[in-house]
């Protein structure tokens, strides 16, 4: 059932482990081996994004349509060319000065189109819906949970009122156009406290996800993410130890070389 891994795959697994340790070395300090991994990462990621953009958007939505004789696609093509006028200046400064402003047309188009569509989108999803959901029926809450229902995580009239009052206080905290009088200061302070409670809770809640990420990396370094049969072919732990030795060695050499000119200066 288990397929034998090719040597290319095994080499890949080793490269992957080495690069993982290169990035982790950043936790110690910015260093040459991290820099190498960083630049490799940026180069590769742009290459991938460009390739995928070509196959995923540019070719199907523009090139294929133009080739199929869709005349309407000339408009986005023209806008792309106008956008391209921005770089003309690099090669021909005089022409760039004359034509560079043309790029503002597609920019105006894109910004306006998205501003328009998002204006209603945001207002719908984040304003209307949220307001509609924040008008609790306290009578029903009272019947179902009473003032405070421990078995339902504190649901009840108190929480219903807290929600409305807390939400209002937070909203009013963002009131810009008048100085905050004593009453407003109390409201605003309460709003800030609710915000802080929420931020603290969110922070605590997130810790788990972040540790999970490191677990994923550790599982790969220790070979725990592979079946035993695969691990026997790849030897991830040997790769990890060897990579660690290489990374540490480079760090030591780098440190020594950094220190020397300083000592001389």
């Amino acid at each position, binding site marked *: 059932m288990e397929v034998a891994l090719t040597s290319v795959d095994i080499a890949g697994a080793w490269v992957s482990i080495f690069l993982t340790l290169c990035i982790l070395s950043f936790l110690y300090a910015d260093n040459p081996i991290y820099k190498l991994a960083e630049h490799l990462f940026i180069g590769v990621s742009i290459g991938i994004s460009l390739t995928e953009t070509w196959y995923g958007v540019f070719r199907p939505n523009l090139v294929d349509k133009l080739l199929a004789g869709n005349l309407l696609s000339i408009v986005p093509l023209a806008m792309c060319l106008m956008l391209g006028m921005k770089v003309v200046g690099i090669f021909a400064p005089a022409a760039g000065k004359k034509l560079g402003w043309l790029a503002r047309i597609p920019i105006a188009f894109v910004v306006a189109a998205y501003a328009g569509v998002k204006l209603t989108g945001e207002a719908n999803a984040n304003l209307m819906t949220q307001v509609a959901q924040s008008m609790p029926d306290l009578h029903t809450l009272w019947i179902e949970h009473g003032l405070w229902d421990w078995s339902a995580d504190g649901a009840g009239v108190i929480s219903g009122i807290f929600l409305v009052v807390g939400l209002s206080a937070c909203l009013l905290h963002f009131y810009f156009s008048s100085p905050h009088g004593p009453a407003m200061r109390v409201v605003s302070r309460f709003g800030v406290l609710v915000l802080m409670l929420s931020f603290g809770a969110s922070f605590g809640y997130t810790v788990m996800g972040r540790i999970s990420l490191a677990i994923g990396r550790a599982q790969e370094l*220790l070979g725990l993410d592979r079946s035993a049969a695969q691990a026997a072919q790849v030897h991830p732990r040997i790769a990890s130890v060897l990579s660690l030795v290489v990374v540490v060695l480079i760090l030591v050499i780098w440190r020594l070389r950094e220190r020397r000119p300083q000592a001389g200066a």
Partner: protein
Amino acid sequence: MLRLLQRFQALDRRWVFLGMAISILVPLLYPVSFSFKVDERVRSLYDAVEELPAGSTVLVSADFDPASRPELEPFFRANLDHLFRKDVKVVVLSLWEYAPPLVVPILDEIATRDHKEYGKDYVFLGYKPGKELAIKAIGENIPKTFPTDSRGTPIGQIPIMQGFKQARDFPLLINVSAGFPGTREYVLQIQGQYDLRIASACTAVSAPDYIPFYKAGQLVGLSGGMPGSAQYEKLVYPEGPPAGVRLLGMQAINVLNLGHLYIIGLIVLGNLAFFLTRRVET
């Protein structure tokens, strides 16, 4: 003593990092097993799958990437296995550019294990750009949004896709969601409009965002982060994993314990030092 406390407060980050590394590596190398409870939201998700009749077809939107893989892959694996073993057919698609290379091997591996046939029991429609717009399109018309599957077969020729035109044709939509676009967009864009049954497995960080959706009945189940994955694994494999299967979620849960305790300890000690030095200083 005072100087020690002051120095502790300004402890070099790298010592903090080292402590974190130890609390991750040690429990992975020396695992201890223990029991944990299953959250009601995860159980609802499990039940939603459990209630599906054999032969029905679900839509899975696998919207995660390599970075969120540790949290969501265990769920995705257990969920697929669960669906396949219940003889439920699975249509997978993705709105995340970087998902397909992760999704395809997992899908094929688990399908092979459960003796499922591509095109008949499961299909991968591939990646669709466009974020919310793609979600709207899935709500409206799947064959138009995905004219072919990821292997280039026209959708009309894929047996499993017959009769499935829109998201609402599926009795359940499972969204494995690592962020944007994901569960929030599914709920806001098409859940209400088409009255869909959506279950979500999300990262721990977006879970608080989605709990209100669950409470409002817009989600039929919700699994948050690695514990959610581990709990789901526990429900699917009550007697331990089948031979050759590693339960990545359960394996990791010990690390979460120690990692949390470590950070809590740091904060508590930091504050203790802060108050002791402040009292002496004033």
